[in-house]
């Protein structure tokens, strides 16, 4: 029976750092032979990137392999695919696909790949090989694991020593009740198989307002005092003014230096209107436009690339006619042409173009850095990241079950300043389950901070 060591704590308490230190502590005892390595896995590519960077910095002497959990499961399934009865290589795809034979391999959806990997791990030989290859397995953002992913981690727990970091409040999936991952580890502490350490000092920010706000949301307590700046801006133009002021005009909000992120829970017209108004204001005040790097989802990115190479009009034939200057599009075209040559196909099919576009986009998103000075991103996209300043745009419609968690995660991204701009009216804000926890609202124009006359605001 292998030991499990877990760390939990709120956002910004340094769980990932703790993981690294614990890894440095456990590695010499566990990784004794040359062929032993440490495996670091996460659910998403974003976290995988961050773990990889952190490992390079904090654990340079530990031989390690970093991967996503799905990727690791797929590698096990591919290595032992003949034991499962498949000869062609297996590719993981979305949807509900049960090991379907395609032109160049066998496709299966992620859940099935995980289940196949779990089945393989039941074999004593496979278990021994994996545990000998990776005696120590590190998992960051473990709260994201549920369903087949969690089952796979449970199977891995039989092979190797696990090091986990989790925060249940950062589990943002509304389909899942509670946090199965943490519940599992907690159940094991009763058997003596696991140890959980909780961190409580927030290292990310020393801003007491933010800390207080975060605390209130977590404990579901209404704050009497003001925490972070919460402003009701039913009119998008009001929110836009606030943003422009903070980042350009600095009438009311000074010292907003560093990078800034606009975080919103989900797509909504409100957001779009606010951003449009921002551009209008910047123009009006003769300032350079406020550029925000819009971080889009994988699917959106793929659509963009496909559109760029002319896939929408010409379908598969776009490969021959396209002459885009966009490097990503170019990569897709070159890649598809090479594939056709390597496989000796007489003509290109749509499936190949789409799958190649997916592959290139995936590679881009996973392996190229994407920080910018100003980003606009969803709460999901901002997970486990931190920014100097955060502006939260809170539209009317937000999923009720996730409100608190979304708000918590958005606010806790900030190191220095945080401002929440609501579409709700003041009265509605007071009765909202999440917003009401943040304490009294701030008036739209705070005269005490006003330095200059002259900026006329249009309501």
């Amino acid at each position: 029976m292998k030991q499990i060591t877990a760390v939990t704590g709120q956002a910004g308490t340094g769980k990932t750092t703790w993981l690294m230190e614990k890894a440095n502590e456990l590695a010499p005892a566990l990784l004794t032979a040359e062929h032993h390595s440490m495996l670091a896995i996460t659910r998403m590519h974003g976290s995988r990137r961050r773990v990889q960077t952190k490992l390079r910095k904090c654990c340079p002497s530990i031989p390690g392999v970093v991967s996503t959990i799905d990727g690791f499961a797929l590698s096990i399934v591919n290595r032992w695919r003949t034991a499962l009865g498949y000869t062609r290589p297996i590719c993981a795809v979305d949807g509900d696909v049960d090991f379907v034979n395609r032109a160049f391999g066998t496709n299966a959806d992620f859940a099935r790949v995980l289940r196949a990997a779990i089945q393989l791990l039941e074999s004593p030989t496979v278990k021994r090989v994996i545990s000998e290859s990776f005696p120590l397995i590190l998992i960051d953002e473990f709260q994201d694991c549920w369903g087949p992913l969690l089952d796979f981690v449970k199977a891995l727990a039989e092979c190797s020593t696990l090091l986990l970091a989790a925060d249940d409040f950062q589990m943002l999936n509304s389909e899942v009740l509670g946090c199965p991952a943490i519940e599992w580890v907690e159940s094991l502490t009763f058997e003596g198989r696991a140890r959980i350490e909780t961190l409580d000092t927030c290292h990310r920010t020393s801003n007491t307002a933010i800390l207080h706000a975060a605390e209130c949301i977590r404990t579901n307590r209404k704050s009497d005092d003001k925490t972070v700046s919460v402003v009701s801006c039913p009119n998008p133009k009001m929110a836009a003014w606030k943003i422009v002021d903070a980042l350009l005009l600095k009438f009311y909000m000074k010292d907003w230096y560093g990078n800034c992120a606009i975080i919103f829970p989900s797509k909504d017209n409100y957001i779009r209107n606010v951003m449009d108004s921002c551009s209008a204001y910047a123009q009006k005040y003769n300032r350079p436009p406020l550029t925000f790097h819009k971080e889009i989802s994988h699917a959106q990115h793929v659509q963009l690339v496909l559109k760029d190479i002319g896939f929408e009009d010409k379908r598969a034939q776009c490969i021959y006619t396209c002459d885009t200057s966009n490097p990503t599009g170019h990569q897709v075209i070159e890649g598809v042409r090479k594939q056709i040559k390597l496989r000796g196909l007489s003509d290109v099919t749509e499936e190949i173009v789409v799958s190649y576009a997916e592959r290139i986009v995936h590679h881009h998103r996973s392996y190229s850095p994407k920080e910018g000075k100003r980003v606009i991103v969803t709460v999901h996209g901002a997970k486990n990241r931190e920014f100097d300043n955060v502006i939260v745009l809170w539209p009317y419609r937000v999923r009720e079950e996730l409100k608190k968690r979304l708000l918590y995660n958005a606010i806790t991204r900030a190191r220095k300043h945080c401002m929440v701009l609501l579409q709700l009216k003041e009265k509605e804000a007071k009765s909202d389950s999440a917003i009401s926890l943040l304490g009294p609202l701030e008036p739209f124009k705070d005269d005490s901070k006003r330095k200059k006359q002259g900026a006329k605001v249009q309501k």
Partner: protein
Amino acid sequence: MRICQLELRHFRGVEHGVIVLPEHTVLLGANNAGKSTIVEALALLFGRERMVSPISDWDFFGGDPKPESRFYIIATLTDFPSNDPTAVPDWFIGENAAQPVWWNGESKSLSTEADPPSGTSLAAQVAMAGRFDEEACEFETVRYFYHGESDPFTDGCAPVPWRILRDVGLFLLASNRDWDKLLSFRSSSLLKVIREYDALPGSAIDKLKNQLRTSVTKVEEEAPLSEIVEAATKELQSFLLIGETSKIVYRPTALDAVGVLQSLVAHVAQSSNTLIPVARHGAGMVSLQAFLLLLAFAEHRRQTGLNFVLAAEEPELHLHPSLHQRLVHRIRGASVQSIVTTQSPHVAAGYQPHEVVFLQNMDGQMTATQLRDEPIQSIPTNSIRHLYLARRGAFYEALMGGILFVPEGQYDFEWLSLWQRLVQSAPNVPERFKLMPLTVLPTSDAAVVESFQEVSRFRPDAIPVIDGDGAGDGYLANLSAVTLAPARIIRYGRDAAVECLSAWFLEPALSSPSTSLASLIGASGKSLKGLQDALIREKKNRELRENIVWESLESGECCERACEFFHDLAAIASGDKPLNAGWTSSQSANGTVVHVASHIERAGP
């Protein structure tokens, strides 16, 4: 560690073929059956490309590779130091490693289950794939761990590090070997092999290098060279800037390690102390010494616990036949595994039947059959056991030969072999006779049916030769009843046996018989019948037989008859019409065509 199985796909002349390799193997087969292909495939996979010639169009089946064409060489290795994959971490542990698979030595099959079935041992599969890049006009190869069918160039793969392949320790003795090159350090192959396998005596080379730099006789200080050097130095100085001096010094080599190695010329002591450079020796002497050097290297590896697998093409080259058996013995002793191709029945005879693999290639489908599965003593039939024991050399020679005939028994075999030899050496063979290579099986105990059944497993084209008598009728019936009946059967005429055949050959010489012939027929019968009777009477006299046949070389007509007969045999085997009008043929119910040489019959009464 040894290679237990090799699979080839679209490689050279083999579209698909799988061969199971016992510990020591000898490969037999017709030319172009794939013997060299197998040996070179192994060398490509486990050795560096330079061991074999570089990849070209002809390495792809069909010789015309398209961009999507691939060739695959897939080898299964077993006999690892342990059956637990975690005890062999180099192969099975890590991010890119082999899949533990299981080899059943009994059933000669591979199981890819996750856990070992009982009675199996740990195995791993590595493969090499090649493709042709049309645009760049280049070939690309990759060696990877085999996890199932895939195209490593498009699907990605787990590459095998060279140091693991090196652990297999495969060495190729190619058939086109130039011993001088092989032995000299100028040859990249020897140098590389020695360096790869860490046998380079680095410190010795260093010492030699230093010696050559410092303590060797300063040639340039001896007259007359010193005068020349002085003059040259003066000239040089006039070209140099003032203050700089240069001196010309002669040394035996460019004074670096490579130079030292390359300057070493292999010499072999001929007798007493005469050292003669290898290039000037007779090939045989050189072959032997070089081969033994190789084997010593092998022993060294084995003693240090390293693996040594020898793949040798015709190791008997340049060597006296009496040495062939000893060669085999040394190969088997020195290597963990050996795979040998040969043209020598003596070499083949050094292997047990389950170690002899017969290769056949039908339009690219290569099949490899072990001669027998069980040890010789377990073969039930006496006559068959005889083939594999006492008559092994002749048996293998027959298998490897051209058109194969299965006679009734010992005497037929001896007579036919003798006449065959005569035909081969006869002078002035008339144009109309096309003589093809024939071999005869050393049947014993009149076990023609059993022998045919045994040999037809590998040579379904074998042709039984039966007497024209009543016993022959019996054999004919039995042969027709065999599951895979022969396509053709040859019979002598009425009541005739092989002695009648010989009598027919010798008939023209009866008028003026040679010494042995005369002593055979004695005073009586200078008739055909008399000759036949005499031959039958003296059937056990081997010496007489040999003498008679050799002496008949003098007689042009005897030779002609013999040549005609053998031509007819070859013609019949190829489906052509025989020359002699005496041949009749009839087809039996199951399709076998029986050709009867009615011109050869027992003279009566």
